[in-house]
């Protein structure tokens, strides 16, 4: 399961995805905006979104 980053963190002491995304601050902000919009708006209810997220993570072996 992939939770060990293959790139070093851009921020000392920061672990996980955040430290990786910090290599590209504009992308990190854009991803945050998109993810926030996805989870806070839309036609699909949260249980369905979460079910899809978990299923996707399992298929791709994503530990997040």
């Amino acid at each position, binding site marked *: 399961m992939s939770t060990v980053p*293959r790139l070093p963190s851009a921020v000392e002491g920061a672990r996980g995805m955040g430290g990786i995304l910090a*290599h590209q601050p504009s992308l990190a902000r*854009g991803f945050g905006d*998109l993810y926030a919009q996805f989870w806070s*708006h839309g036609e699909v209810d949260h249980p369905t979104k979460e079910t899809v997220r978990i299923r996707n993570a399992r298929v791709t072996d994503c530990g997040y």
Partner: protein
Amino acid sequence: MAEPPIVDAPLFVDTDLLRRAGDLRASAVAALDPGVADAVERRIRELVGVPVRDGVAEPVVAEPVVADDALAVVLDVAEQFVLDVHGITDERFARLSDHFDHAQVVALMFHMALVDGFAKLEQSSGTELPDVARSMEDQP
């Protein structure tokens, strides 16, 4: 005559979500060499089986924007990303760092993920999604 709708499929009505996705795509592309970004997009869309968008350049062979072996490494990872992401081994991923710095690798992976996701969205829905970021900029 009225302008045709930007998106003609009922699946794609959340314009705020599309705008953010388009912004993210544009940010990823802006962080990359245009030739590399175009080559990745072209290859992924070919693999997924959706038309290559207008404006996505053919790879320039005579004057490569990056070394041939660097582009080969990128396209190898991009193909594996589409076909089976489990095939992106530590060794395969590490080869990216032989040619690109960490920030570029992050941008490359974002670009692959977004192109792959949107191409598969188009393939599965049977709808061609326009260049959202570019289209949205024209909106009042």
